[in-house]
């Protein structure tokens, strides 16, 4: 969506801070139900983020599938299985040496990704790819484009995804009901 500049920047800063705080909340909150709700907040922020980057179909799919299905499933899992473990788990919640090593490794991964992102000249790549594209503008919308791709180029992966979903459904029922 092409909004005006200040509104766009304000929304971007708001969603970015929401993502950062929500991601910290998923990892660092002690009660799993709070981190599940924090995960839902992160997923909603990502969905708004997709709307800002001109992809409303993916935003709707994110909102329906992730927030509506996956997050509700995780909340159900937390509510069913949060019984005896959580109360006597406090003495194990200390900062062990493994946590320190892991945070060091993840910070180094993040810093290396950061230097790679900042060193690459993205705008040169943008101009070289833009010049290869056709100049004419067609009036096909986003979801029409996705539907055309799903029924022509990506037809076989689309069918395979449906088979995978069916197998996962049957397998989950067979594992969980015995």
């Amino acid at each position, binding site marked *: 969506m092409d909004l005006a500049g200040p509104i766009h920047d304000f929304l*971007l800063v708001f969603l*970015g801070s929401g*993502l*950062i705080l929500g*991601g*910290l909340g*998923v*990892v660092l909150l002690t009660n*799993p139900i709070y*981190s599940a709700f924090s*995960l839902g907040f*992160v*997923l909603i922020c*990502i969905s708004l*983020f*997709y709307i800002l*980057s*001109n*992809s409303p179909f*993916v935003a709707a*799919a*994110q909102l329906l*599938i*992730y927030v509506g*299905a*996956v997050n509700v*499933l*995780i909340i159900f*899992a937390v509510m*069913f*299985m949060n019984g005896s*473990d959580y109360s006597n*788990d406090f003495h194990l919640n200390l900062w062990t040496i*493994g946590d320190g090593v*892991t945070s060091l490794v*993840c*910070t180094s991964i*993040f810093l290396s*990704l*950061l230097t790679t*992102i900042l060193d690459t000249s*993205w705008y040169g790549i*943008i101009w070289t*790819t833009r010049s290869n594209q*056709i100049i004419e503008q067609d009036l096909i919308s*986003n979801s029409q*484009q*996705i539907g055309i*791709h799903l029924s022509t*180029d*990506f037809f076989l*992966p689309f069918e395979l*995804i449906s088979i*995978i*979903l069916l197998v*996962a459904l049957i397998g*989950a*029922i067979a*594992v*969980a009901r015995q």
Partner: protein
Amino acid sequence: MMLEHVLILSAYLFSIGIYGLITSRNIVRALMCLELILNAVNINFVTFSDFFDSRQLKGDIFSIFVIAIAAAEAAIGSAIVSSIYRNRKSIRINQSTLLNK
């Protein structure tokens, strides 16, 4: 929207997802951190498709596939967690040693 800011946000989500996946002692929390990692991948797909391929939008197709795979993964993961909980009465990761016999 600056491309670098979005990529930095996605790298942040990815690294914090890996941190939570390694250090969490709860299986359900590990599943949540896995969802965070997949969402970081999805943000990269959608952003690159918007910036570099705004006519064809093939990155959106890949992000939809990743969303479908993540839904299947969450269903299977919850089923396995409930099976482990039924057998062991615990969802600590280091107590699920049923294969260790």
